């Protein structure tokens, strides 16, 4: 990029947010897998999210600069995909499957038990910042329904009685 040619991405504040050098390297590596850098957008958002837990406002402009696209493009993508978080989440994200197979095998009871034990509903985070609860598309674990996911781990079938022991594993 020419130093004397201001780009739109330079004019958008990144709120002092800086992409961690290791993350920038990872994003550049991802970009090499595609014909155009923009294709690494979702992965770039995921890389930043892995470090910060979510995607802060400033990261949008910072990622846009690395990819060489407008920040509006990146924000459009960030807000479209359900597993990119544009607001802070808990240390652990709990995705509960609400699709048909789970619905027919105890989802309502499992969801209610989660709400009771965590004291939160969808889109909320526990006061101690430990869990965020979200619904998710069919987890493809229907022979183990009802199923849920905590961070990278998929569980099922899970009964309400299993929850205390299961949640304990995620301090």
């Amino acid at each position, binding site marked *: 990029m020419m130093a004397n040619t201001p780009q739109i991405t330079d004019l958008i504040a990144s709120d002092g947010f800086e992409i961690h050098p290791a993350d920038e390297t990872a994003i550049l590596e991802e970009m090499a897998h595609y014909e155009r850098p923009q294709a690494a957008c979702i992965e770039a958002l995921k890389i930043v999210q892995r470090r910060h837990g979510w995607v802060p406002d400033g990261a949008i402009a910072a990622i846009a600069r690395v990819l060489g696209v407008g920040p509006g493009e990146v924000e459009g993508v960030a807000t479209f*995909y359900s597993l990119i978080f544009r607001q802070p989440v808990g240390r652990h994200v709990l995705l509960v499957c609400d699709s048909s197979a789970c619905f027919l095998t105890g989802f309502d009871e499992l969801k209610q038990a989660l709400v009771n034990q965590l004291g939160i509903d969808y889109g909320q985070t526990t006061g101690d910042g430990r869990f965020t609860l979200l619904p998710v598309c069919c*987890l493809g674990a*229907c022979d183990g329904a009802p199923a849920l996911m905590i961070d990278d781990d998929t569980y099922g079938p899970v009964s309400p009685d299993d929850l205390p*022991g299961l949640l304990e594993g995620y301090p």
Partner: protein
Amino acid sequence: MSQTMSSQRDSLRYRSRLLQPEAERHPDTHPLTWRLRDDGEVVWLEEYLRKDGYQAVRQALDEGDPQSVIANMKEANVRGRGGAGFSAGLKWSLTLQGGDMPRGYLICNADEMEPGTFKDRLLMEQQPHLLIEGMILGALANNCFYGYIFLRGEYVESSRVLNRALEEARKAGWLGADINGSGFDFDIVVHTGAGRYICGEETALINSLEGKRANPRAKPPFPGQSGAWGKPSVVNNVETLCNVPAVILNGADWYQALSGDRTNDGGSKLYGISGPVEKPGLWELPMGTTGGEILDRAGGMRGSSQLKAWLPGGASTGFLLPEHLDLPLDFDTVGKEGSRLGTGLLTVVPKERSMVALMRNLEEFFARESCGWCTPCRDGLPWTVKLLLALEQGEGEEGDIELLDKLAADCGPGLTFCAHAPGAAMPLQTALKHFRYEFEQGVSKPRGKAHQDPIPVGEV
């Protein structure tokens, strides 16, 4: 962490499994699963090679005739296992290649999110090299220089297994430049998503692959003419691609014969069943196996439950009744009954469950997962949710059911860019057809006296 706690976590951990022992699975009858191990461990390269792995690629590269690969696939009539049932060979024959046309992309649709579907996960997590081999053959046939496995982000284990397998294949010379001295170049990368059911629609998938919002594209041009970055691109489901090696090795006639005289559709199929049955699971069975045989394999309905209705292949297929259990589950037969084979993984509904509540659950799913591109889908689906919620609570008004009919008709084929809205309409229309009285029981108010609250757009 205490030992009991971690062992409880381990016992609850979900593991993909096939409910068919090795003794029942043979190379000549179970092309998709005969190599799978009873212990559920991954079949890595060494074992895959020992079990005839990469023989089909070796043969096709030696022959060096992509057109014969396509002809074989066309003749075998391998119909798309992602749910649409379009002939993979026909799709391949329409890919632009030759002349000045640049080499394109082979994209594996591994965005398995159709509610009730858990088959591609098994193939990827336990037998990654079969998919890789199928992709190499697809690439050879369609003149693709690069491949992507578009994998849903939640399939963390699949990603781990696939990446290790790709590394193995690269080291052994099955991927990369000049594959085992053939002069053919091809490599594969795993591209993981970040949620949204719509990514499974092939043109939305391509937008997502390009790093954009997953809105579908207008067709034509079809991906085979202009797909990822304007290049010819072929999108095939995991199970479809896993069928290719055996078709190439054994031929189209053999493949056709796998289904015997059950159906005109050849081959075998990963069938499964979930919901309240004794043993929900997954089996590789001849194409055209009946719903009754699959329900029997699952040990029947759980406890004293009785079957009321079933979905043959995911949330976007139409409800069938117990009387349909004797039908061969192939694309055309199920289509004639006003449903679709879809992914071929059955979901059963027991007598005691309300169809209105189940439809509310299904439409909440479709409303939430609409990408928002087309009006009937974006606005119509939340409206159906609102009506279904009211009916479920016995708070519906006169005219609601006719309105549901209308909203579903407005989502019909051809009225929106992609198949999401028609997929949302089909279960609703068939539920209204077979179980209308259940919906009628939810009407308690005269016209104009219910639904004072706004439509919950953005809340479902």
